[in-house]
């Protein structure tokens, strides 16, 4: 596993995002209310720059007219064909098992522990789908993406 500093904390405020180049990969790092998530910036459909897409909520309806809009900011839509992905897991809305984008772990880490190994985690909680993820950390002033 390799840790890569991709940003200072101030570069990605809540609601913000940054596209970073890490080991030849383009990775989108998102700040959702202080929690950080990272996805490969490549849509599994046709390779579009997924992480540049519209970021919004999940729109559902039982029947026409009964709209339910939740998880605001947690869904990113590929700018090429509009496929929706869950920022927290990388899973697509329409086929979450087979169609998903690689996600990476992100951590915010205090500067003083930068060289001290694991360090303090700032607000990071592991998501439910750990198998595909790469740890990312933020070191107080740095956002760190983990590439396994």
């Amino acid at each position, binding site marked *: 596993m390799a840790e890569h500093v991709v940003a200072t904390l101030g570069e990605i405020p809540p609601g913000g995002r940054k596209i970073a180049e890490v080991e030849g990969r383009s990775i989108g790092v998102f700040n959702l209310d202080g929690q950080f998530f990272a996805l490969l910036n490549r849509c599994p*459909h046709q390779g579009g720059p997924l992480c540049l897409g519209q970021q919004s909520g999940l*729109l559902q309806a*039982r*029947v*026409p007219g009964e709209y339910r809009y939740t998880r605001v900011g947690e869904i990113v839509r590929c700018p090429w064909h*509009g*496929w*929706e992905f869950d920022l927290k897991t990388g899973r*697509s809305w*329409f086929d979450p098992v087979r169609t998903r984008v690689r996600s990476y772990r992100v951590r915010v880490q205090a500067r003083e522990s930068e060289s001290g190994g694991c360090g303090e985690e700032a607000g990071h909680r592991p998501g439910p789908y750990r198998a595909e993820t790469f740890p990312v950390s933020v070191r107080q002033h740095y956002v760190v993406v983990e590439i396994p």
Partner: protein
Amino acid sequence: MVQESGNEVQRPFWSGRPVIDCDLHNEVPSLEALKPYLADHWCAYIEESAFRGPDADDYPKGAPTTIRPGLEWEGEVEGQLALMRRQVLDPLQVEFGVLDCAYRVQGVHDPELAAALASAINRWQAEHWLDRDPRLRASIVAPTQSPVLAAREIDRWGADARFVQAVMPVRSLIPYGNRIYDPIYEAAARHDLVVGIQFGGAPGHPPTPSGWLSTYMEEYAAMAQVFQSQVTSLIVEGVFDRFPDLRVALIEAGCTWMPSLMWRLDKEWRGLRRDIPWVKRPPSDYIRRHIRLTLQPLDAPPSDKQLLEVIGQLDSDEMLMFASDHPHWHFDRLEESFPRGLSDSLARRVLAENARSFYRL
């Protein structure tokens, strides 16, 4: 439609299996036949105004697709039924035959007259067809351009188990997914009836989105586009989300266009589903669950092998239901009305079992 040698009709290779024919035509011979079932004031109106019935002419009598030259079909019920028995019901040993009366009350602009005609037609069907042959089942004719009146007519027959569906022409005033039609779907759901969408109709606007056509050839072939528009509308507007048990039969629609429509809808749904969040599963999933297609007239690829490939692309062994479309003329010998090469289990499903479960026969 069927070759007869002497008075014998040859039995096809697949006979001996149960057969349910999902599309047999019964034609109202004339307005005279309906007068016993019309109120006096409507009889007077017909005479005084010289009203001759709706203008729709989906099956011109001289068109080669309508009936084989030399056969007597028009005329009184006795003659129609005799031909139907001789050419289809008897030689195929049909267990059930579903009548699809194509009298287009939808083309009558006075909604009350349309409703009165529909009601008369259904009483005529019950007395002159259903009472005469226990193998027959019928479709409720309803003024579907006036959905509330149509629902009233469906309710009138909902308890008569011999009426197994409500039939609407595929050409409509506005697409069938629109909620204006909900009373019809509610009524069908209330009585556990199939909604049949049938070739034809004369709503007053062109049969294609690109305008009026010049020839019957164009109208006949282009009807597949209208079916595609209706299937799309039903799914996209959430009819099957609002009526989760609704079953829709596409009658005389052809079937080879269906796989490509499913692929197209599934593909676009992935990116556009936010516009229609009530569509929770791929559109093809709704189609396989809720929609069935009658077999004849069958679009005919050049070889049986290609036809089997298309049937395979439906990715469902439940979607096709046998229909002769009698007395329309799509094949010379009964033998040709059913594709060769289907597996035995699929053949049985198409010949009878799919219809049996769909129509609750």
